[in-house]
C-alpha cells in the first residue's frame, strides 16, 4: 500500500490540521476508499489543495487507486486555471471552497459536496490516455503561470518517501510540522516521508509570523521542522534561538541555498541544543531531495549540500557531458536515482509519454566537489531564480512583459532580487506592479532598471550580449 499505511499502528494519529481535525492511519485508508468510490477509474483530476486533511486524503486516494492528480495551489488564479484546464482537459476537479473557479457549466456532469465544503466536480471531458507508470503531476513553477508540469512515476513516490525517511531516520515517535504547501515538492516530501515511517504530520496553513503556528508547534510537540531559506530568515528575525521548544529534535532545510551566516547560526544552535540540523538539496524534477549534509558535518562543511541521499548517486560532468572522476572537481552536477522524474508535460498528449530521463537528472546547478567529496552549489546554468522558495523563470518573466507591454526587456538577478531592464523607464512602476501581480513576488524584490545600449541587428532584432 502507498506509504505502507496498512503496516503502521492503525489507531495511531497520522494527520492533524488547523481545523482541529485529526485522523488515524486506519481512517486514512477508509476515507481514501470513500473518495475513490466517486471516481472509480484511472483518469486525470486537478486537486486545488491547501494544507488540510481533506486535501491530503484526496491526493492519497488518487495515488493509491491509480488516479492521476495535478496538485495545484488553492490560490491558483483563474487565468492559469483556465489555461491548465484547456491544455490538460481533466475529467475531475477537487477544490476547496475558497477558490471560486469552476469549469464551464455545460461541462459539468455532477458535483459532490465533501467535508468542510470541498467539492468534487465531474466533467464530461473524455478520460485522457495516461502512461501506465504516471502517478501525478506538479507545476514546474508555482508562480509565473507556466502550464509546464513535471511527470512523476509511482516508483518516484515510493523511493522518495523511503529514501528521505531513511536519511532523517524517521520513526513513529516523530511529529513533523508541514507548513510548506503540499503542492510544492518539498512540502509533499515532508508529509510522505513521515507517513511512510508511521510518524505524525501536522498540516498547517498558518505562516511562521502567525501566533497560532507557534501554538501548534508547542501543543503538538513537534519534533521535526523543515523550511526553505526564507523560513530560516523569518526564524532568525523571530528570535527563534531564544524560543523554548523542548520537543524539537530535527531541523531540515531545502529549497535553495541558505545564506552562510544563517547556516552557521543554525549549525551552532543545533550543536548547542544537541539536536540535528540537516541541510538538503533537491528539485521538483528529483521528487524533492537528492542530497543532504550529515548533521555532524555542518560545522566543518559550511554551506555544503553534502552528498547523495541513500540509494542516490551524485556526479560532476564537464562541458562535453563527460563525468569527471577526480574527487576535487567543478562542473555541472548530475544525479542518478529512482526518484528522478519521468520528464515534463506541456499538454495532454504528453501524458502518454514514457520515461524520458531514465533515472538520470542533469541538474543545471554548477557545483564544486571538495577533496572529501562534499558538494557545494556555486552557480546555476538554467535561467531561473529562487526567491522566497519560489522558482522564477527569467524566460517566462521576459515573455510576460513582452506580451503585456510589447517592449524589449532583459531579466537577470539573484536569489534575493529579480532585475528587469527596460528601455523606457516611465513604464517602471507598471512593469513592477504587473510582474509582482503575476508572480506574487514582493514588489521590493523586483528592481526595474535602465536597459542601456541595446544592440539590434540589421532587421531590428535584439541581440543579447550578456
Amino acid at each position, binding site marked *: 500500500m502507498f506509504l505502507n499505511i496498512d503496516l503502521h499502528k492503525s489507531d495511531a494519529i497520522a494527520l492533524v490540521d488547523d481545523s482541529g481535525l485529526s485522523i488515524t492511519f486506519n481512517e486514512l485508508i477508509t476515507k481514501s476508499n470513500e473518495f475513490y468510490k466517486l471516481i472509480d477509474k484511472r483518469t486525470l483530476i486537478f486537486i486545488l489543495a491547501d494544507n488540510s486533511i481533506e486535501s491530503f486524503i484526496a491526493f492519497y486516494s488518487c495515488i493509491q487507486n491509480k488516479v492521476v492528480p495535478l496538485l495545484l495551489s488553492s490560490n491558483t488564479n483563474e487565468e492559469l486555471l483556465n489555461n491548465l484546464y484547456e491544455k490538460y482537459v481533466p475529467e475531475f476537479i477537487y477544490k476547496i471552497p475558497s477558490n471560486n473557479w469552476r469549469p464551464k457549466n455545460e461541462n459539468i456532469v455532477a458535483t459532490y459536496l465533501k467535508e468542510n465544503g470541498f467539492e468534487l466536480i465531474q466533467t464530461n471531458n473524455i478520460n485522457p490516455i495516461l502512461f501506465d507508470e504516471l502517478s501525478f503531476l506538479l507545476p514546474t513553477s508555482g508562480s509565473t503561470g507556466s502550464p509546464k508540469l513535471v511527470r512523476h512515476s509511482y516508483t518516484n513516490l515510493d523511493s522518495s518517501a523511503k529514501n528521505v525517511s531513511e536519511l532523517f531516520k524517521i520513526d513513529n515517535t516523530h511529529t513533523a510540522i508541514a507548513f510548506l504547501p503540499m503542492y510544492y515538492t518539498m512540502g509533499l516530501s515532508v508529509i510522505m516521508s513521515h507517513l511512510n515511517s508511521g510518524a505524525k504530520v501536522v498540516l498547517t496553513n498558518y*505562516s*511562521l*509570523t*502567525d*501566533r497560532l503556528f*507557534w501554538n501548534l508547534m508547542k501543543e503538538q510537540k513537534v519534533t521535526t521542522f523543515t523550511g526553505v531559506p*526564507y523560513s530560516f*530568515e*523569518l526564524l532568525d*528575525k*523571530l*528570535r527563534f534561538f*531564544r*524560543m523554548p521548544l523542548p520537543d524539537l529534535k530535527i531541523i531540515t532545510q531545502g529549497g535553495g541555498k541558505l545564506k552562510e551566516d544563517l547556516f552557521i547560526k543554525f549549525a551552532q544552535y543545533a550543536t548547542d541544543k544537541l539536536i540535528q540540523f540537516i541541510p538538503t538539496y533537491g528539485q521538483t524534477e528529483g521528487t524533492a531531495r537528492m542530497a543532504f549534509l550529515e548533521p555532524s558535518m555542518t560545522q566543518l562543511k559550511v554551506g555544503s549540500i553534502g552528498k547523495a541521499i541513500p540509494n542516490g548517486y551524485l556526479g560532476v560532468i564537464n562541458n562535453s557531458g563527460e563525468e569527471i572522476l577526480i574527487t576535487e572537481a567543478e562542473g555541472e552536477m548530475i544525479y542518478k536515482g529512482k526518484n528522478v522524474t519521468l520528464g515534463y508535460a506541456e499538454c495532454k498528449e504528453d501524458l502518454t509519454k514514457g520515461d524520458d530521463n531514465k533515472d538520470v537528472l542533469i541538474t543545471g546547478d554548477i557545483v564544486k566537489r571538495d577533496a572529501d567529496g562534499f558538494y557545494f552549489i556555486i552557480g546555476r546554468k538554467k535561467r531561473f531564480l529562487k526567491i*522566497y522558495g519560489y522558482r522564477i523563470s527569467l524566460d517566462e518573466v521576459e515573455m510576460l512583459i513582452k506580451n503585456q507591454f510589447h517592449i524589449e526587456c532583459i531579466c537577470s538577478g539573484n536569489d534575493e532580487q529579480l532585475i528587469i531592464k527596460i528601455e523606457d523607464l516611465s513604464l517602471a512602476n507598471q512593469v513592477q*506592479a504587473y510582474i509582482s501581480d503575476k508572480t506574487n513576488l*514582493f*514588489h*521590493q524584490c523586483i528592481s526595474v532598471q535602465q536597459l542601456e545600449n541595446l544592440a539590434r541587428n540589421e532587421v531590428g532584432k535584439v541581440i543579447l550580449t550578456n
Partner: protein
Amino acid sequence: MNNLEKFNSIFAETFNVDSSQLNENFGIDTVANWDSVTQLSLVTAIEDEFNIMLDTDDILDFKTYSIAKEILKKYQIEL
C-alpha cells in the same frame, strides 16, 4: 523627517501605498499584500530605522498600523 513621518514612509514603501491611506483600518485583514514576506520586511525596516530589536511576541503582534504604533511606544519611540 520626524518619527511619525519615518514610520509612515516605511509602511508606504513596504505596502506600495500612499501615506494618506494609512489609518486605523490598515492591517493584515484589509491589506491584500500583507503576508509573512511584507511583515518581515516591515519589521526589519522599522528596527533599522529606529535602532530597536523587537521581541518575538511584538513581531507576531505587528499586524496593523495602529498596533504597530502601540508597540513602538513600548520601545520608547515617540511618534
